[in-house]
C-alpha cells in the first residue's frame, strides 16, 4: 500500500501493534476494513460471513502481530490471513450444509451466492443484476484457488507476483489459475 508522505507505513503500525499499541491497531483497521470486507464478501458472497471473517482476520493480526517479520509487505501477510480464513470458512460451511441437509445445502448456498452485490442504486442493480449474477455464479463454481486468484487479481488489482505471494504458490501457477478461470468465465459471457 502506498502512503502519503509522512504517513506511518503499515509495517511500522504492525510493529507497534505487536507492542500492544491500541491506536496503531485502530489505524490499521481503518486502513484495511473496506478492502478486507470487500475481499471476504467476494469470496463468500454473504454479508454476515464477510463481516465475521474480516473481523476474525483483524483479530488474528492483533494476536499475532509479533510474528510478522517484515519479510513480505503487511498487505500480503494480511491478505494471506484473510484468504485462508475465507476459504476455510467456506469449506466448513459447505461440509456442515452437506452434513445437515445434503439436498438443501447446495440449493440454499446457490441462492445466497446468486444474489448480485448490493449496489447503491436499486434501478441500476436490477438492470445489471442478471448478467452479473451469471458471471458471479460462474465465479462461485471455480476452484477455491482460481476464485481467490481472480478476486485478488481483478478486484483487488494485485499483480501476479503479489497474488502468488498471498496464495503461497508460484507465479506460473497463478497464471494457470487465471487462464483457466478466465476460460470458464468467458463461456458465461459468450455462451
Amino acid at each position, binding site marked *: 500500500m502506498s502512503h502519503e508522505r509522512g504517513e506511518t507505513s503499515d509495517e511500522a503500525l504492525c510493529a507497534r501493534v505487536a507492542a500492544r499499541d491500541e491506536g496503531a491497531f485502530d489505524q490499521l483497521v481503518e486502513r484495511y476494513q473496506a478492502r478486507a470486507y470487500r475481499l471476504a464478501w467476494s469470496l463468500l458472497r454473504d*454479508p454476515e460471513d464477510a*463481516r465475521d471473517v474480516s473481523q476474525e482476520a*483483524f*483479530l488474528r493480526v492483533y494476536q499475532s502481530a509479533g510474528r510478522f517479520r517484515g519479510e513480505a509487505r503487511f498487505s500480503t501477510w494480511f491478505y494471506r490471513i484473510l484468504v485462508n480464513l475465507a476459504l476455510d470458512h467456506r469449506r466448513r460451511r459447505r461440509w456442515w450444509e452437506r452434513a445437515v441437509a445434503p439436498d438443501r445445502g447446495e440449493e440454499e448456498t446457490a441462492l445466497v451466492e446468486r444474489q448480485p452485490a448490493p449496489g447503491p442504486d436499486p434501478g441500476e442493480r436490477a438492470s445489471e443484476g442478471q448478467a452479473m449474477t451469471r458471471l458471479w455464479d460462474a465465479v462461485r463454481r471455480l476452484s477455491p484457488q482460481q476464485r481467490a486468484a*481472480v478476486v485478488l487479481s481483478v478486484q483487488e488489482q494485485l499483480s*501476479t507476483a503479489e497474488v502468488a505471494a498471498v496464495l503461497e504458490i508460484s507465479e506460473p501457477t497463478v*497464471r494457470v489459475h*487465471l487462464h483457466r478461470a*478466465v476460460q470458464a468465465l*468467458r463461456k458465461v459471457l459468450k455462451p
Partner: protein
Amino acid sequence: MDTHPETALVPFAKDELAPDERARVEAHLAACEACRRALADVRAVLVELAAAPAPAAPHWGRYRVELRARIDARARAPRWWRRPMPIAVSAGLAAALLLFMLWPPAPVEQRPVDLAALDETAIGARLDMLEHYDVVERLDLLEELDVIRELDIVPVRDGG
C-alpha cells in the same frame, strides 16, 4: 514465440509483463489471429469482473465496536487447557481410566526376597536411634518406656 502464450494473456492485459516477455507476446499476437481473439475475450472478462458493484458497506463504527468486543472476549476466554472439558471428552477419559484400572495386570515375575537387604534398610531407618545408643543402654526399659518413645527430644546428658 512458437507456442500460444495463453497463460501470459491475463498479465499482458493487465500490463504487468516484463518488457522482454511483453515484446514476445506482442510479436506472437501480430501473427496469431486465435490469440488476438483470446486476448479480446480475456479483456472482456476482466472488464465485467472489475465492473462488479461493491458490496454495501457495513456501518464502520459498529464494525469496529464489534471487533473490539471480539478481541476483549477472546482475551477473557480461558485458554483451552483451562476450559471446562466437554462432557463427551470427560466421559471418554473416565471410561479409559476405569478400563485401565480394571484391566487384569500383566503377570509379574516373582523374585526371591532379599532379606539381608531388607534388614539393612530397616537399620538404616533407625540410624538416629543408634547415634544415641549410649542413652538406651543406661535405661531401664520397663520403667523408662516413655523416655524411649521420646528419645529424639530427650537431651543427651554428659555422664548420665
